[in-house]
């Protein structure tokens, strides 16, 4: 049969495919069967032997891909992507005291990092002070301890806040930490409208996956919409929510669940801000996303491409946002911490490279590459540098940044992108039927789906159906130790001393007044941010502010956990 359009055909003749299967494939299989009966992604999606033009029957490049910088943004949010500007290399850092982390920030900036990313310790993430009983043993361990503005001043000492962009991974107490950052900027004499950065501020995924909550969903969403309103007005370059799939994936979800629950959370925030009376095209462009880059290379690329296409549809067709900037899904990616192994830790450098490459081919705007020793402890300076260099090698040596969305049109990648999209839409539909993401969370639906997927995956690893090199294959018995970062036991003591000094040094009448004002505002519909900012300026601590709000908002208790 003569192909149309001068021999440039977009579909294979089915007879030709059959010929190949019978003439070439079958004898090959007879000689040597394939390694496995079924091939699947890390999320257990089935993968075919070969993808052919027929797989994209009815697929329309104009509709599914468009052009970069144009809807549906499958090919990326910028017309030139990495030819114009490389992604932001943003390594998450924070440990010990504010002084320790400040030194690490200076080190990273000197080594070519282009943005800061702050990790806080668990007490701070939970809105508790360093002298809280539940904070015992955890101060400064997994991130930096911040109690009052005094700590934040040290954290950013010598770093002009108008010349860096700062991402802060903080959720339940995000409004307080942001207020502290703004107060530091005020002290540096920098106008708020010049500040660039992000707070994670994604409480919904806390209920779903990371479990660092304080208040119940309704008041939490109110704090968030207050903050969104405040920033839209006063800190217009600030990314107000980083809607995060990362932790959902780390909790054990599949790629499709990560995609679905993250976008469902995004829908939840849009709805909440709309019902607070905010204008969609004023706030939506400042929402950003945060996805995981796991081991399955093509699945991750497909996930990121599908995410952009879906968010565009959600914002344009579901919420009728007018500005194309509202339709764009801009994202940060971090390589998958949960994929790293304590065994033979140097292998992790290779895993991270593959994952980072997927993030880049998926079109991310910024990237954190994990350090090889992160299953053992927080990264050492050496391992953090290798992680950063990994990105620099991908960016500057590999050539993958030379063209936009290089995998577009691959039968396999497009098919997989469609499949992830389809699976995610069906989850979103179920969540809509439950009455939205908050109702679904209260019912425990995403939590259950993730726990089930995590269990299935663990059984697959236990049974060596899924391979983890160095663990269930090619293992060498003993854990090969890498040098790890030690957090001295003195951090807690120093931190508590500084907190007490801040309490003693402040104007106590003014302090009491600001907290009193805060609880009064919390009972009204007035925006909370100015009252929080005022309390922070007077050196009220994270714990004191959160406790004051708890008296009005109550605390969240997880329902019965099914396992």
């Amino acid at each position, binding site marked *: 049969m003569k192909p149309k359009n001068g021999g440039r055909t977009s579909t294979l003749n089915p007879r030709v495919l059959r010929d190949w299967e019978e003439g070439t494939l079958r004898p090959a299989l007879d000689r040597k069967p394939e390694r496995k009966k079924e091939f699947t992604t890390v999320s257990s999606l089935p993968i075919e032997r070969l993808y052919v033009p027929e797989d994209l029957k009815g697929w329309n490049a104009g509709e599914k891909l468009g052009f970069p910088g144009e809807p549906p943004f499958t090919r990326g949010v910028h017309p030139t992507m990495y030819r114009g500007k490389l992604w932001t290399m943003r390594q998450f850092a924070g440990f010990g005291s504010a002084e320790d982390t400040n030194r690490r920030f200076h080190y990273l900036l000197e080594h070519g990092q282009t943005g800061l990313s702050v990790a806080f310790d*668990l*007490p701070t*993430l*939970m809105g*508790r002070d360093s002298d809280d*009983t*539940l*904070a*015992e*043993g*955890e101060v400064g*361990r*997994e991130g930096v301890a911040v109690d009052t503005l005094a700590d934040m001043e040290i954290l950013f000492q010598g770093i002009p806040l108008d010349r860096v962009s700062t991402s802060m991974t903080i959720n339940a107490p995000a409004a307080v930490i942001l207020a502290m950052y703004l107060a530091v900027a005020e002290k540096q004499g920098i106008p708020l409208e010049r500040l660039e950065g992000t707070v994670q501020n994604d409480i919904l995924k*806390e209920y779903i996956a*990371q*479990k*660092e909550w304080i208040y119940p969903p309704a008041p939490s969403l109110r704090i968030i919409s207050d903050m969104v309103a405040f920033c839209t007005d006063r800190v217009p370059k600030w990314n107000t929510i980083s809607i995060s799939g990362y932790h959902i994936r*780390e*909790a*054990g979800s599949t790629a499709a669940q990560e995609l679905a629950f993250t976008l469902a959370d995004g829908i939840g925030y849009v709805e909440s801000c709309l019902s607070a009376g905010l204008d969609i095209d004023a706030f939506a462009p400042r929402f950003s996303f945060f996805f995981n880059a796991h081991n399955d290379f093509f699945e991750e690329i497909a996930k990121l491409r599908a995410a952009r296409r879906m968010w565009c549809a959600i914002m344009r067709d579901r919420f009728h946002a007018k500005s194309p900037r509202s339709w764009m899904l801009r994202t940060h990616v971090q390589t998958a911490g*949960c994929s790293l*192994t*304590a*065994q033979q830790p140097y292998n992790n450098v290779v895993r991270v490279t593959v994952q980072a490459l997927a993030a880049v081919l998926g079109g991310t705007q910024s990237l954190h590459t994990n350090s090889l020793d992160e*299953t*053992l*402890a927080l990264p050492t300076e050496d391992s953090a540098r290798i992680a950063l260099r990994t990105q620099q090698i991908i960016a500057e040596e590999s050539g993958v940044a030379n063209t936009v969305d290089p995998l577009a049109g691959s039968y396999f990648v497009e098919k997989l992108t469609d499949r992830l999209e389809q699976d995610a839409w069906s989850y979103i539909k179920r969540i809509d039927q439950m009455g939205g993401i908050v109702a679904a969370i209260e019912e425990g639906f995403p939590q259950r789906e993730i*726990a089930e997927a*995590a*269990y299935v995956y*663990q*059984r697959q*690893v*236990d049974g060596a159906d899924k391979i*983890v090199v160095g*663990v*269930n294959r090619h293992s060498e018995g003993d*854990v090969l*130790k890498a040098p*790890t970062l030690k*957090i001295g036991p003195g951090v807690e003591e120093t931190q508590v001393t500084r907190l007490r000094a801040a309490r003693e040094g402040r104007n106590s009448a003014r302090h009491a007044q600001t907290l009193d004002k805060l609880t009064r505002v919390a009972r009204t519909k007035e925006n909370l941010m100015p009252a929080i900012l005022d309390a922070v300026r007077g050196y009220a601590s994270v714990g004191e502010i959160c406790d004051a709000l708890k008296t009005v908002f109550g605390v969240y208790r*997880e329902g019965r*956990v099914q*396992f």
Partner: protein
Amino acid sequence: MTTERKVRLLIGKVGLDGHDRGAKIIARALRDAGFEVIYTGLHQTPEMVVATALQEDVDGIGLSLLSGAHNTIFPKILRLLADKKSGDTVVFGGGIIPEEDMLTLQRAGVRRMFTPGSTTQEVVDWVRANVPPRRR
């Protein structure tokens, strides 16, 4: 006729750490293996864990800890159990524990720490061999 009963286990998460993926997987694997399993849920204090352990009359307590606070939390739980004359409760755990802390924990009386890469079957087998029903 024997009156031997099922071994009862408490799986717990202590402190502020919210990483409950491992704890839930282990709880389910142990339940599927025929043990009676109670899961504490998140954000427990050592006192709460011990109170639940006594109330539920468990034979073993397995704690998942990824926060780095293991050197504080395990000894405290063991001390509280001893105070309540329940020092024969088998305490084990899992998480990211640096090699040099392992010995400290063992000396404090933690019977076994499972580190990343352990299979659920290893945990089940170990519990079966090392957590007998306590004498009442």
